[in-house]
């Protein structure tokens, strides 16, 4: 009877060890984060921020146009890298007239002067929203910049891109969404 118990214990330990090994072998260290969000196809949160001139920016009042929100800090290297793409995208959309998407930069936790200097040096004259109260960040759940969100003219969230974007990707995505609408 005792031998039975010992054997049971040993086989239990063996099973546990083998299970652990299987998990360890199969676990993938670099499973990337996905761009999924519970906000997709939901109304965009009605949050507010401060514009450069001190006036209030209200996301809910941008209904009627396609809105692209780019979360940004001036010190983040990928943000700096993607900036020329955003400039190109903004120019391209401006060419579409009233159909074109509006680009907004949402500044996360950054020094105002540094941001203004960055835009002066690198171009880009779209509205810059300072999210000093973390309202955009918390509503959209942006953990790490850069991140880009697409909101359609009805105020519904249509897309989220974590990491750098290209002008081409943004344009084609919005074009596709427009056609689907």
């Amino acid at each position, binding site marked *: *009877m*005792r031998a039975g*118990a010992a054997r049971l214990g040993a086989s239990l330990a063996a099973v546990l060890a083998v299970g652990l090994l299987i998990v360890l072998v199969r676990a993938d260290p670099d499973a990337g984060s996905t761009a*999924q*969000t*519970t*906000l997709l196809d939901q109304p965009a949160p009605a949050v507010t921020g401060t514009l450069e001139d001190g006036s209030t920016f209200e996301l809910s009042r941008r209904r009627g146009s396609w809105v692209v929100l780019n979360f940004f*800090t001036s010190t983040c290297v990928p943000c700096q890298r993607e900036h020329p793409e955003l400039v190109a995208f903004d120019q391209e959309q401006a060419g579409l007239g009233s159909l074109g998407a509006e680009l907004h930069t949402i500044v*996360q*936790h950054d020094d105002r002067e540094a941001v203004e200097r960055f835009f002066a040096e690198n171009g880009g004259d779209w509205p810059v929203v300072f999210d000093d*109260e*973390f309202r955009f*960040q*918390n*509503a*959209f*759940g*942006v*953990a*790490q910049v850069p991140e880009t969100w697409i909101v359609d003219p009805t105020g519904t969230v249509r897309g989220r891109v974590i990491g750098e974007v290209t002008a081409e990707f943004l344009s084609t995505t919005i074009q596709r969404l427009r056609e689907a609408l």
Partner: protein
Amino acid sequence: MRRRLSWLAVLFVTVGALAVGASRDGGPLDPGDRIDAISRRIACPVCDGESVYESRNPASEAIRSAVREGVRAGGLTDDEVIAEVADAYGAQVLLLPRATGLDALAWALPVTAAVVALAGLASAFRRWREAAVQSGEATDDDRRLVERLRAERDGDGSGGSR
């Protein structure tokens, strides 16, 4: 008799102190402490398992501010504040596994293991007692063997060093 009275007194003091201490109303929780307690239960989304309470990452600062607003607004329980953050940032910010689906295993397995361990211990003791009753001779043999070995070792059996 005196000892029994003494034990009763110990019991009385213990139960009394526990009752006073555990039921004492420490007043409504200080909002700062509540923010701390909640932020200890949320993982910083970008810093490898640290909680928002520990981390100094800007994302954690943002989440702390969301928690602060949730607490200041009043009317929300801790769980509701956390659920709001998890809705925005995703379930991977929850430091406590949920009690549903696969995550429930994280709670069920320890409890199962504890029950199995207790049952195993109890059955082992029962078996030993039965074995001792059935074959008292063998146990005495062992006793003598152990005694002999201990005598050989040091001639003194009280549990000292080695």
